[in-house]
């Protein structure tokens, strides 16, 4: 009897704490101890591995936290002194230098790109006034982009879905993980019921306090089959890693090329910029991952334009330019040569 009473009390307390977590109260207090110990063990372990790897000139760990790399740099200076000679003396400046993608820093090539056309199957995504569905446009643009990247860039391009199939977010994440892709791009179209404008925005994973962004994330995450614990583990894992920095740069390139070129076509497009949002789909691959809202279906004019294959081809072209811009940061002077719409 006493045991059952205690069990019940524990359960009630569990319900209470769970609800505190949902509303974001008490999270830190509840997780403090679970979180602390592994990190303490992890840091020296990582540092040891990094020292060994970096001294053998086999550095190929682009996604380790920057602060560990900075620490490594100082440790390396202490142990090797100036013997390294031609090595970078200020790791922070090197890593943090604007326009230097990590793939270049470590001499890594991008071979495989995974494209994720949003929604699909039973999940239409948003729908324009004329009935155009986001899932169909996202797939069409992704297919065009795939053709371009394979034909012109020689990349290996994978798609999370090739047809009009329902694909839950957790499956997309799994696919991204398994694919060993080097970049991940999720393609979506926006809908702004309150403002009939056309706009472009690009997201990378991260916390956001903007209620509109959170609302959008809520919509896009709706069919995820992830549980809270999975989600939390992934967020903790991703926290402060270089993936975030890389994703930010990748997002900036996509947004810049997409907006700049569409603006040139059509002055009435708004730049909503690069944002952070907790989209589940961006958590999958441990590589730079962004979600691009390439157009806006609530704008009637834009919906009509999207019915034109050339317009969709142009969007695919601008996304391709964004990818190339990211991969060739600093060198790229790509400018879209827009083909006239028929």
């Amino acid at each position, binding site marked *: 009897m006493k045991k*059952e*009473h205690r*069990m*019940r009390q*524990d*359960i*009630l*307390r*569990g*319900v*209470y704490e*769970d*609800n*505190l977590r*949902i*509303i974001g*109260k008490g999270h830190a207090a509840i997780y403090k101890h679970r979180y602390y110990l592994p990190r303490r063990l992890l840091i020296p372990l990582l540092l040891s591995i990094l020292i060994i790897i970096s001294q053998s000139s086999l550095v190929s760990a682009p996604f380790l936290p920057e602060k560990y790399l900075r620490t490594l740099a100082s440790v390396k200076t202490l142990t090797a002194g100036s013997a390294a000679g031609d090595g970078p003396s200020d790791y922070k400046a090197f890593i943090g230098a604007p326009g230097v993608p990590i793939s270049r820093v470590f001499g890594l090539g991008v071979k495989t790109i995974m494209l994720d056309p949003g929604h699909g199957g039973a999940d239409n*995504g*948003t729908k324009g006034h004329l009935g155009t569905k986001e899932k169909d446009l996202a797939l069409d643009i992704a297919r065009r982009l795939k053709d371009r990247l394979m034909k012109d860039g020689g990349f290996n391009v994978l798609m999370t879905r090739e047809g009009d199939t329902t694909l839950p977010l957790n499956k997309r994440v799994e696919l991204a993980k398994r694919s060993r892709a080097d970049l991940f791009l999720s393609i979506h179209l926006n*809908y702004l*019921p309150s403002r009939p404008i056309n706009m472009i925005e690009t997201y990378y994973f991260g916390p956001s306090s903007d209620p509109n962004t*959170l609302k959008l*994330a*809520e*919509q*896009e*995450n*709706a*069919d*995820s*089959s*992830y*549980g*809270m*614990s*999975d*989600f939390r583990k992934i967020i903790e894992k991703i926290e402060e890693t270089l993936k975030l920095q890389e994703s930010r740069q990748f997002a900036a390139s996509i947004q810049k090329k997409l907006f700049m070129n569409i603006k040139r076509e059509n002055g009435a497009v708004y730049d909503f910029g690069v944002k952070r949002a*907790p989209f*589940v789909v961006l958590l999958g691959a441990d590589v730079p991952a962004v979600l691009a809202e390439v157009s806006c279906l609530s704008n009637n004019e834009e919906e009509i334009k999207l019915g034109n294959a050339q317009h969709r081809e142009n969007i695919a072209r601008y996304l391709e330019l964004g990818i190339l811009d990211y991969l060739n940061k600093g060198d790229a002077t790509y400018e879209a040569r827009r083909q006239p719409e028929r």
Partner: protein
Amino acid sequence: MKQDDSRKDENVLFVGIDLGTSRSSISASNDTRQWIESYVGWPKDFIAMQVVGKPVLFGAEALANRLSLDLCRPLEHGVIKEGISRNEEAVRDIIRHLLDLVNPQAGQKIHAVVGVPADTLKVNKLAIRRAVAESVDSLMVVTEPFAVAYGLNLLNNSLVIDIGAGTTDFCIMHGTIPTEDDQKTILNAGDSIDDQLFSSLVEKYPNARFNRNMVRQFKEQYSFVKDVAEEVRVEIPVDGKPVPHDIKNEIKRACESIMPALTETTIEMIARFDPEFQVKIKNNIVLAGGGSLIRGIREYLQEALKEYGPCRVTGVEDPLFSGSDGALKLAKDMPVKYWEPL
């Protein structure tokens, strides 16, 4: 269980709510219980408003007047459907309506526990909270099968399978609040039976005229798995004239279509539990939700699990209210101090 003295405060009405895809129910501490079909309808225009005479209609009344209404079934797959603010409005309206049905006194505070499907993401729970919070003074969200388990005192070594319309939720209880690993949601549930039955009937009787609502009624009246002795004949109009149709095989096939996934997930859930306690859990499997009323389902599952050793499958006595009753019990047992921050 010893009750906190402050709970005797009559100025607080405790309510338990089960938000379902098909039906929503409420149980209150003033011994009132009510349920409605989870439909909300708003008049399409001024004329429709004149016809129905109300700004918003619920449940069966909304269904009966559906031609004059913008009809909304807000909880698809057990969560607020993505991206449409009207669905949040619909949930808010359903909650308000349910609360009205249990007659809270003027000035009485309402402390509510709301059951939502297991394995939902934080964003979904937040959406539910957002929709419910404005109608109550303090709110806790729990998973539906957990609420059922708590209400039935199945706190330890049990597996609750809640077969609803949009989802089937599994929850293993082992003396603490279940974690994400202890819970799983699959989409093989009442709605998927409806879809299967609808397609089979369209194929078999192409001249008959019926809609999804009729198909749902056929299912609710005649559903079975394995076998039943009697014939299953329903009247469906053909060229405007009611004609009896034999639908026994179609009903059986549709109902059995969810069983492989249900069996497989049951095995998976048990297998991931501590082997020492697996036998106990196998002998304490409880079916809840509307799907537990399918004739023969307990025997079917028991037989399917037989090869994994002996097991015992039972069903709740009152599937319509088992979720809301459990949520009410949680609300009443919850210490007063836990309500304050929520």
